């Protein structure tokens, strides 16, 4: 398809288009000459979104020799928006990488690194994050490295999951925390680290056949840097750290440490010229966080620059108020700290703790049995060892086997500019089709929120019904597994008839919760109203469950006995008795299920865009909610909490879920995501 505007067109007053440069997801970019003879790039925006324009406007007056300058934003006669910017006529880093499939010469790497670091530091100092740093966006106009951005589309979704920027970027350079919607300056440090590895070795540190595979590697795999000198490895590991808080925090710090590493005697760099260049660069570097600027000393004047496009984003959300001290001290931040503390615990410890708590609660009374806690801890450790650790080791083994299979024999390959032995010729960098290219993941307004799709959810009723049916069917085996586990491993449901009752109750709850969850999926709605509807549904379920236990003649079974008094029961005992002979009455059942359904956002546990298929933390919270409701009413705590846990787990396991890597690939044909 030809470009919209032919040469010599003048859609924008004062500028004559000479030729088209590029077509991206956002629109088209042209080379134009102003009436006065200035060469510019003009970008026609496809989507006249106010937020996009607002982001560009914030960059209008930025001026730095290592950044492409935006001159103006104009509107043509058709009221389309154009961005007028500097034209960069040089080569891109991507072209240079193509020319050096085994790695670039070190002096060249240092030159590009210096320009990128200076440009990014300028942005970061002003609260901006580039967020889509990649070789195609870095240009060299003569000797001047410039960061730009053509071929990028970012826009703000106006959907239910609003305030979440959806953008198209490149998955190869995407920091792991982007999956969680975090876009700090560390994202740029990470991308710079990936590019450094690529420049040094010609290889991507995280590569794969599919977008999902690459994303997964970003999230879980350690980059193979063994071909690099140890000092360089340390620096790059610091830049590619999964946890943004542990990552090198400053691009200038990364540059300084990299230069020091390549200059170190142990780096075994083949080029003395490279070391000299590294030393020269290191001398010119500013101190931490640009100490010259911090000290108020003059920064070298910006050289007059010229061409290209960039599209920076602020590292705060335009739709959110700026954080205040009061907000920082809120319970939410306490919860966040708790979450961070939990995440920092070693994984085996987390599993041990989870197992201990689960079995303690489930098997007897709340948090009392030390034997159960120990047994649960052991079970948790066993689960971690068998299902997590072994899987990770197996994956690592297969990866290392694959890596060694392509390792070249010594001395047969051309030696690159560093100690890198080229593993294999670099694959031609082809733009990934559609969703693959863009790994822009949503920004949940809260860390625990579900992750929305790349494309706005457009689910038809047919999709919803299909998803609902598939999820309901999947609930059957999930119920069997969970009930059998509880039956054989705990004494909550000691008899087979009670296990049948437990399984059927769980199934009824899950089915009833699935119906509204799937109808509400991708649609905005008031949380309180939804809880109220769930509460009403819970009352009906309670009545049904009481009928079920009556039908199964379980009325006086031990599992229903409770010696608690209950706050609510004490109030209602005279008018609506919830307990009779230490066994819940029909009203007690209805109250329990009504409250249990009303206190939790069950729909979020069935959302196909939830962050993971099974969140143990959600199940734990459900368990605690069940225990709390049981204590309030009262209702048998062991049964109530276990039921809540079981419902949560079955709901999550059965409801369709779309893995992060597949989001944005459309839901047609698989509306249920991965079942």
């Amino acid at each position: 398809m030809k470009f919209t505007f032919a040469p010599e067109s003048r859609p924008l007053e004062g500028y004559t288009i000479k030729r088209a440069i590029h077509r991206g997801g956002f629109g088209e970019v042209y080379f134009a000459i102003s009436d006065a003879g200035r060469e510019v790039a003009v970008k026609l925006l496809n989507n006249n979104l106010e937020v996009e324009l607002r982001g560009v406007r914030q960059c209008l007056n930025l001026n730095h020799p290592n950044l492409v300058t935006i001159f103006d934003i104009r509107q043509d006669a058709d009221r389309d928006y154009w961005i007028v910017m500097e034209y960069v006529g040089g080569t891109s880093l991507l072209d240079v990488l193509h020319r050096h499939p085994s790695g670039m010469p070190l002096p060249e790497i240092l030159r590009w690194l210096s320009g990128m670091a200076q440009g990014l530091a300028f942005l970061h100092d002003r609260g901006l994050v580039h967020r889509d740093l990649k070789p195609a966006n870095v240009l060299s106009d003569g000797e001047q490295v410039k960061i730009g951005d053509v071929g990028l589309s970012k826009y703000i979704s106006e959907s239910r999951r609003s305030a979440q920027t959806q953008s198209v970027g490149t998955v190869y350079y995407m920091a792991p925390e982007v999956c969680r919607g975090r876009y700090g300056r560390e994202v740029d440090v990470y991308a710079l680290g990936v590019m450094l590895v690529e420049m040094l070795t010609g290889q991507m540190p995280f590569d794969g056949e599919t977008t999902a595979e690459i994303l997964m590697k970003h999230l879980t795999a350690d980059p193979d840097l063994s071909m690099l000198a140890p000092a360089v490895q340390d620096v790059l590991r610091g830049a590619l750290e999964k946890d943004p808080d542990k990552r090198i925090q400053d691009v200038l710090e990364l540059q300084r440490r990299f230069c020091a590493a390549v200059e170190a005697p142990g780096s075994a760099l083949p080029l003395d010229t490279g070391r000299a260049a590294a030393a020269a660069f290191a001398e010119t570097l500013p101190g931490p966080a640009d100490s010259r600027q911090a000290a108020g000393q003059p920064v070298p004047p910006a050289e007059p620059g010229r061409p290209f496009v960039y599209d920076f984003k602020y590292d705060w959300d335009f739709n959110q108020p700026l954080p205040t001290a009061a907000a920082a001290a809120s319970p939410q931040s306490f919860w966040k700290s708790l979450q961070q503390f939990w995440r920092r615990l070693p994984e085996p410890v987390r599993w041990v703790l989870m197992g201990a708590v689960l079995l303690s609660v489930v098997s007897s009374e709340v948090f009392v049995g030390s034997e159960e806690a120990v047994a649960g801890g052991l079970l948790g450790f066993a689960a971690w060892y068998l299902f997590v650790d072994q899987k990770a080791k197996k994956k690592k083994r297969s990866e290392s086997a694959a890596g060694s299979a392509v390792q070249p024999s010594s001395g047969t390959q051309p030696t690159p500019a560093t100690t890198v032995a080229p593993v294999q010729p670099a694959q031609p960098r082809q733009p990934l089709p559609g969703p693959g290219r863009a790994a822009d993941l949503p920004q949940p307004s809260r860390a625990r929120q579900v992750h929305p799709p790349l494309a706005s959810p457009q689910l038809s009723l047919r999709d919803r019904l299909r998803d609902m049916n598939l999820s309901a069917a999947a609930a059957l085996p999930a119920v069997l597994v969970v009930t059998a586990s509880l039956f054989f491993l705990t004494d909550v449901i000691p008899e087979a008839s009670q296990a049948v009752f437990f399984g059927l109750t769980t199934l009824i709850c899950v089915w009833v919760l699935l119906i509204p969850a799937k109808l509400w999926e991708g649609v905005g709605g008031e949380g309180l109203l939804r809880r109220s509807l769930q509460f009403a549904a819970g009352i009906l379920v309670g009545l049904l469950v009481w009928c079920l236990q009556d039908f199964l003649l379980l009325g006086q079974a031990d599992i229903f006995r409770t010696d608690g008094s209950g706050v609510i029961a004490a109030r209602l005992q005279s008018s609506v008795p919830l307990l009779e002979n230490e066994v819940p009455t029909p009203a007690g059942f209805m109250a329990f299920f009504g409250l249990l359904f009303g206190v939790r956002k069950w729909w979020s546990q069935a959302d196909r865009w939830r962050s993971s298929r099974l969140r143990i933390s959600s199940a734990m919270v459900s368990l605690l909610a069940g225990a709390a409701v049981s204590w309030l009413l009262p209702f048998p705590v062991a049964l109530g909490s276990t039921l809540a846990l079981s419902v949560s787990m079955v709901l999550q396991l059965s409801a369709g879920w779309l893995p992060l890597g597949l989001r944005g690939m459309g839901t047609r044909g698989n509306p249920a995501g991965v079942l």
Partner: protein
Amino acid sequence: MVSFRYMLWIDGVGAWQVCCGTTVVVGSAAPDAVADIRLQAPLSRRHAVLELSGENWLLRPLQVSGAAPGESRAATTLASESLIPLSSRVLLRFRIPSVLSSSAVLTPHSPHRFVPHADGVVLLADRMLLGPGSDSHIRCRGIADRLVLYTSNNGLWCRSTSEFLVNGRATTDAAEIEHGTMVSAGEFRMRAEQLSGNDP
């Protein structure tokens, strides 16, 4: 001097200057510039001459560059993929992409730019190719069949093995390229502008 110069503006590819003639002067882009190929660089107005001799291009310096000791004004035969040091810091890359043609391509090797802005200059000896292959003088990925540009009757012409459009009209025959001519085929689109002697 060249008989004529054209600027080709090609969508998605770049801007290329075409110099048709057997003698091409290289010089600075000063306001009173007289060179056929002008560079924004500290050069003389007439700095060097590129001459087509048989099937070879010769470089004859008009000024001593100082790039190498013992430099003379004697003509040097240029081999493909060689670098032309116009001065100690101004370097042009010279290459002949196709063995079927003596037409050559000049691109800046040092951080200097042509005036008017161009990604490169084609020294058109007889014919030049526009196409996706590496033997093309101007590589255009959006074109399926190669387009051949050649000189005839003191003018610039083009032809192709398949149908293409000239100013919107389909043709399979050769078509003359004049100032403002638009040539397109599939996604390929090019506009030619003739440069006068006074044009920068």
